[in-house]
């Protein structure tokens, strides 16, 4: 029954979301674009970082690459090919970065990804100033907000399906072993570097595509806008709040936090990053493994204690 019901619910949700632009006003569509963007980012981030426990702070590096590729080639390459180009560049960078850093211990990976966005931003700025001669670029593409919304919805759906499929496949099992103990994984005959690289590449390409699809919303792009570190930070918080090891975790984290941050940036623009930081610290302290794991543990404890207590009361 559940086997039949889950795909039906999934299809119904996707269909309902696809219908939203017909009824919502332009603000609703903008909100939807932001939310779908972060749902996709958080799910893609958790795809790699959840099971392997490699905390990546490089989300915005790939996001920015996607956005900038669209900005640079928007007048020379037709739109669908533009996305393919962005994805290909993201893949190339992911393979180079992954190949050189994924063999390292976790903490070095965190540090490297922490700086990667800054490095790419500096290189792009340097190139734009010295080679292209301008810092900012305009994007004029005939893409409507509704079009962006549907593209993001499609990408979010695909990301969710990939995440679901990986959880059930051999590669997903291999990832779980790697996350628990790399030495054991190596002795089981798992090619650790290759599995990690493959996942890192998939996750990075999806993040690059989110940047590429959202780029036309900006009209004007500068390295500082495209490589804004807050994007990495928000993605990380959202995935952690929901629980990076669960299929639904990143979605459950992304939706409420996106709405909260949207409200905060409208009402407290100056104190936004302070509140952001405090929320994040609170999540690390109170819900280190995410809200889903927390709820599950308490639910189990509650169910375990209740039947035990009942006979005691009866006596």
């Amino acid at each position: 029954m559940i086997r039949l019901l889950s795909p039906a619910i999934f299809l119904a949700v996707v269909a309902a979301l696809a219908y939203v632009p017909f009824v919502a006003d332009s603000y609703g569509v903008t909100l939807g674009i932001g939310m779908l963007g972060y749902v996709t980012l958080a799910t893609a981030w958790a795809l790699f970082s959840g099971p392997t426990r490699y905390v990546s702070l490089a989300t915005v590096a790939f996001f920015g690459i996607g956005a900038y590729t669209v900005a640079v080639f928007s007048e020379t390459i037709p739109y669908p090919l533009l996305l393919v180009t962005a994805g290909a560049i993201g893949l190339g960078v992911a393979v180079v970065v992954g190949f050189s850093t994924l063999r390292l211990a976790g903490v070095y990976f965190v540090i490297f990804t922490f700086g990667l966005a800054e490095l790419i931003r500096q290189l792009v700025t340097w190139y734009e100033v010295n080679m292209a001669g301008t810092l900012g670029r305009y994007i004029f593409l005939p893409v409507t907000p509704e079009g962006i919304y549907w593209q993001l919805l499609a990408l979010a759906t695909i990301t969710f399906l990939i995440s679901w499929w990986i959880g059930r496949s051999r590669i997903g099992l291999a990832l779980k072993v790697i996350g628990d103990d790399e030495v054991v994984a190596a002795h089981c005959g798992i090619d650790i570097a290759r599995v990690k690289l493959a996942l890192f590449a998939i996750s990075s390409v999806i993040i690059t595509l989110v940047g590429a699809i959202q780029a036309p919303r900006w009209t004007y792009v500068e390295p500082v806008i495209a490589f804004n570190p807050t994007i990495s930070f928000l993605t990380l918080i959202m995935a952690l709040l929901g629980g990076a090891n669960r299929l639904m975790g990143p979605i459950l984290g992304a939706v409420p936090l996106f709405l909260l941050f949207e409200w905060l940036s409208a009402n407290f623009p100056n104190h936004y990053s302070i509140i952001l930081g405090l929320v994040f610290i609170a999540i690390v302290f109170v819900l280190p493994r995410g809200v889903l794991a927390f709820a599950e543990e308490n639910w189990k404890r509650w169910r375990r204690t209740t039947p035990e207590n009942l006979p005691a009361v009866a006596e």
Partner: protein
Amino acid sequence: MLVAALLSGLVLGGTYALVAMGLTLQYGISRIMNLAYGEMIIAAAFLAYVMFSGLGLNPVAGLLIAVPAGFALGYAVYGVMMSPLVKRARDKASLEIDSILATFGLLFVMQGVMLVAFGANFTSYSYLNDPVTIFGTTLAANRVLALVMAVVFGGGLYLLLTRTLWGTALRAVAVNPAAAPLVGIDVNRAARLAFAIGGGLAAAGGVVISMYQTFTATTGVVFTMKALIVVIMGGVGNLIGALSAGLILGLVETFVATYVDPGLTLAATYGIFLAVLLWRPAGLFGRVAR
């Protein structure tokens, strides 16, 4: 040209070395990877700026206030934020990830507070901006003073850690935190102390930087990155390693800026970092840990 680049490279490198020493203490002894370290540096730079332009206090005297303040901040951050994480951590790896995440949040809080207080503008003040001639090249006096201060602080710390019983205890925790209690060392106390000293060094570095560089509320991340690179190059917990790696980084940056292109200094920094990570992950002077 060559001598000028060499000298300003040494000034920059001395500052990096000073700053990185604090981070190598925090990471090597307390096992806390502090991503908010650069924000502590910038906070001290703003403190020096406020004291200089508001109270007319010169930065050297400002150190007497900034360094104890940094020490107290480090002590408080460890006590309030880090020790619960240390208590709940199952192993070294999970503490590292937890501390990275918590200090990443702290980074945004501190940056936000400074943005609210000082805005996003470039800040600097003019102190001892007089020309001094050394080896036939002209250098601003504040840069020379910065180098002298970096040498004094770095040297003092080195002597403190190698010549006193108290410093030996701290180094013992860095080498083997499991065996240190066997010889009567309180590891938690040592960790808290090392974190606080790191905060003090960050404050000293911030004051030194504020004397000859412009800074903004958001440049902390760059200093954290550079300090991390120096720490890894020098080997985690290795003071002499941090000192030499800091000087190397400063020299490379200055030479790239002078002879190649000022826009590519950060790229050069990352180039070195990646090279070190790939070929010598235990640092230029370290042995590979088993």
